[in-house]
């Protein structure tokens, strides 16, 4: 069974639309028609939980806010326990397009990989702010490459598809946003086969800016030196 994991923190404005998108999208693949959508509520203080439950998602709740990495790992463990064959990570802010899940699965099957990583740079559907495209992301890509050893066309893209094998190997210990680089690092460590796949990202908000990037770097360096 395919599990879609949606970590959500105070996303009452967009979670309904995101979940609706899953249920309304006409997937051709049979396994996608029966996919299980799991929202991991990360201690939201708004109506995220109620809206997600009403929309028909399975909701796991963090009593207190622990960060996106922590929420994803909770979702991963739940999916493993429930016997998931494939897990999709999907953001709750409505930036991704559910259609990319189906084509991403095709990539996974056709290329025989364990991990599919979304990239905004493989087609021209994503219209991102220029400062992000030409300043922030090139720097992030470079830093990630230094820290993880993998060369990717995108950095900190929350769209991923993981096989069960990958799910068993990858363990997210970075509770906050540095989990992204951590996952990439573990792909390399465990020699998991991976492919990048074009995904569309719609920008309603800027998302993580320079401050967010610096916080990620701080978390990554702390993890390196505090062990």
């Amino acid at each position, binding site marked *: 069974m395919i599990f879609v994991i949606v970590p959500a923190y105070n996303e009452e404005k967009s979670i309904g639309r995101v979940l609706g998108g899953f249920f309304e999208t006409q997937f051709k693949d049979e396994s996608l028609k029966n996919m299980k959508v799991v929202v991991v509520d990360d201690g939201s203080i708004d109506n995220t939980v109620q809206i997600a439950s009403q929309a028909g998602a399975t909701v796991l709740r963090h009593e207190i806010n622990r960060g996106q990495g922590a929420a994803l790992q909770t979702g991963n*463990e739940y999916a493993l326990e429930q016997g998931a064959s494939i897990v999709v990570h999907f953001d709750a802010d409505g930036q991704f397009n559910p259609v990319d899940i189906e084509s991403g699965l095709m990539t996974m099957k056709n290329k025989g990989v364990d991990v599919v990583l979304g990239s905004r740079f493989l087609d021209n559907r994503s219209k991102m702010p220029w400062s992000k495209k030409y300043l922030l992301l090139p720097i992030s890509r470079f830093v990630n490459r230094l820290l993880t050893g993998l060369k990717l066309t995108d950095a900190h893209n929350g769209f991923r598809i993981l096989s069960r094998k990958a799910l068993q190997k990858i363990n997210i210990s970075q*509770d906050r946003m540095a989990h992204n680089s951590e996952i990439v690092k573990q792909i390399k460590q465990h020699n998991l086969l991976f492919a990048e796949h074009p995904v569309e990202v719609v920008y309603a908000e800027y998302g993580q800016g320079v401050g967010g990037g610096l916080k990620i770097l701080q978390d990554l360096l702390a993890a390196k030196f*505090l062990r």
Partner: protein
Amino acid sequence: MFVIQIILFIFFLFAFVKVVGRFKAGEIGKMTALGWCLFWVAAMLVVILPNSTAQVAKLVGIGRGADLVVYLALAALFFIMFRMMVKIERFGKEITALTRKISLQEKDKPTAK
């Protein structure tokens, strides 16, 4: 005797009394209390007899006793800060693990707040 000596002495005495108080209230253990008491008594001695550190300072190659105290204090502070960071990091991980455990255990219960 300079005013600063009096101020520091009173402050260290206050800290000493606080340590005894925490110990009596059962909030800190015997060894912790003893360690801190010795520390504050030593601090008071140094304040009353500032020249007592001069000899040690000379021994390790520092000109003044006061400088030695400052160097040692800074080194100790940074080390303690590092230890606290490690500890906080570990607490964070433990809290996350606990949160996750509760979340996975309660997944079958109604989600209403």
